[in-house]
């Protein structure tokens, strides 16, 4: 009998597949506005929520979602308000978050294994966890796909979106909260410290070969899903760390596609030598600088 006949393996597969599908769907917006690492920071903050949950004997997933959402909105306020000191404020928030989590869990004097939150523990996903993951995953997809034109506009050119009359601040808060929900949905399957990889790596892989935003989003979701499934299928029988296997598989895909894309470019160049790149003739450039 295959080990995938066991319910815990099915939950592991489904939970990780949902993370693989949702993380890049949200992550593409973070990559678009050059906030690739923000998911990692929110993961740090979520650990304080886990700590509070353990200490109060309440659901760590629920409290992690609440604390991560508060943290994500704080990050958004810092991003909006400050241009120069934002960096330091984020560092304080993130390291405060992870220290708070470790501190509170230790204070609880329980045998809770922090590693299962930091790096995922898909084989121990319970019925209640599974239900939460399915509901939150559906909500993430509804936001990322349903609001795509508006989120795209805000992440592509925030000033333009403001002048176009879009509710920029509301949309930014929607992105922040969805980031927090994505992080905590992924907490049980691939872990708070690894989720950011699935937000960024499949997008980076997809954009090597795609030409538009819609196609990049679709391909990155397929790659994320494939990484999630492959990671569990590989790690199950071979008993490797599931979260790490998923991420390493995603990175391997990136390397294969990057090498393939580079090879294709080189092959094209050799086939069509001497064709110059399309550019404006420099002698008709009238002015380079114009800011005032």
């Amino acid at each position, binding site marked *: 009998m295959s080990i995938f006949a066991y319910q815990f393996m099915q939950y592991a597969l489904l939970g990780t597949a949902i993370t693989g599908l949702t993380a890049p769907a949200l992550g593409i917006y973070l990559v678009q506005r050059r906030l690739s690492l923000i998911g990692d920071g929110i993961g740090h903050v979520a650990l304080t929520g886990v700590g509070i949950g353990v200490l109060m004997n309440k659901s760590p997933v629920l409290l992690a979602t609440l604390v991560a959402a508060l943290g994500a909105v704080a990050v958004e306020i810092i991003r909006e308000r400050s241009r120069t000191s934002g960096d330091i404020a984020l560092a304080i928030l993130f390291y405060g978050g992870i220290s708070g989590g470790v501190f509170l869990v230790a204070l609880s004097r329980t045998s809770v294994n922090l590693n299962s939150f930091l790096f995922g523990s898909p084989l121990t996903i319970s019925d209640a966890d599974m239900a939460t993951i399915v509901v939150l995953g559906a909500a993430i997809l509804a936001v990322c796909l349903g609001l795509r034109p508006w989120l795209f506009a805000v992440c592509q*050119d925030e*000033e333009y979106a403001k002048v176009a*009359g879009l509710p920029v601040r509301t949309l930014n808060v929607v992105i922040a909260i969805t980031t927090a929900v994505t992080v905590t949905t992924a907490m049980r399957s691939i872990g708070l410290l690894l989720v950011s990889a699935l937000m960024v790596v499949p997008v980076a892989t997809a954009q090597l070969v795609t030409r*538009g*935003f819609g196609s990049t989003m679709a391909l990155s979701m397929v790659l994320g899903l494939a990484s999630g499934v492959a990671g569990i299928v590989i790690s199950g029988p071979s008993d490797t760390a599931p979260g790490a296997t998923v991420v390493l598989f995603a990175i391997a895909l990136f390397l294969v596609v990057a090498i393939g894309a580079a090879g294709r470019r080189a092959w094209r160049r050799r086939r069509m030598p001497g064709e110059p790149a*399309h550019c404006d003739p420099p002698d*008709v450039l009238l002015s380079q600088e114009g*800011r*005032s």
Partner: protein
Amino acid sequence: MFVTTVLRVRHGVVAYGERPVLRGVDLTVHTGDVVAILGANGSGKSTLIRAALGLVPLSGGEIELFGTPLRRFRQWPRLGYVPQRLGAGGGVPATVGEVVAAGRLGRRGWKPATRRDREAVRAAIDAVGLADRTKDPVSTLSGGQQQRTLIARALAGEPELLILDEPTAGVDAASQETFAKALGDFVHGGGSVALVAHELGPLASLITNAVVIHDGVVAHTGPVPPPAGHHADPDHDHVHPHAPGTAPGLWERP
């Protein structure tokens, strides 16, 4: 009500920190006007239109859009903004069609796109001569084609007033011609324009009124003044000392 003034700035003052950039500037754009805001680098001309769009707060004076004070103005689809350049989007590719469609969202509201919306996007891309590049990533376009993409994005919302920040900076001659034609079509269709420029190039014939900003104040209002000094020479090398100490009149005609 027939609104004849689409944009009015009265004694606008803007300061970045302690440094005043605009020191009491007046600007009026009437329906059908094509107003060029001219001046040297650092004169405050871009700041003026950014303030008019609400992107930079005024520390004094007032701004009205279509007869409504800026802080109460909500009819943003009547306005089309064309920034200096397209952001990189973090390396995530976006096609010309996707970028231009973003310009329709203000009109479209939260509803799914109708055929009317899709037609407006297509017409805007046609107007700037990029129909054959609709599915191409904007990163593969030349600077001039990217600028035309931004114009199309603004046109997709079917605005009544176009506000352009340095539309001709670093743009090749062929693109400038297409650009001037698209702007001319917009004006003939009843639109009004306010544009910031360092030099006018093929746009010069469209301009109805010029405002010259020098060192944060209006130095000239009226018709486009003739090029002064060595600027009259079409081959002059385009290097300006920065204000203050520079005479107003730093632009050229082709």
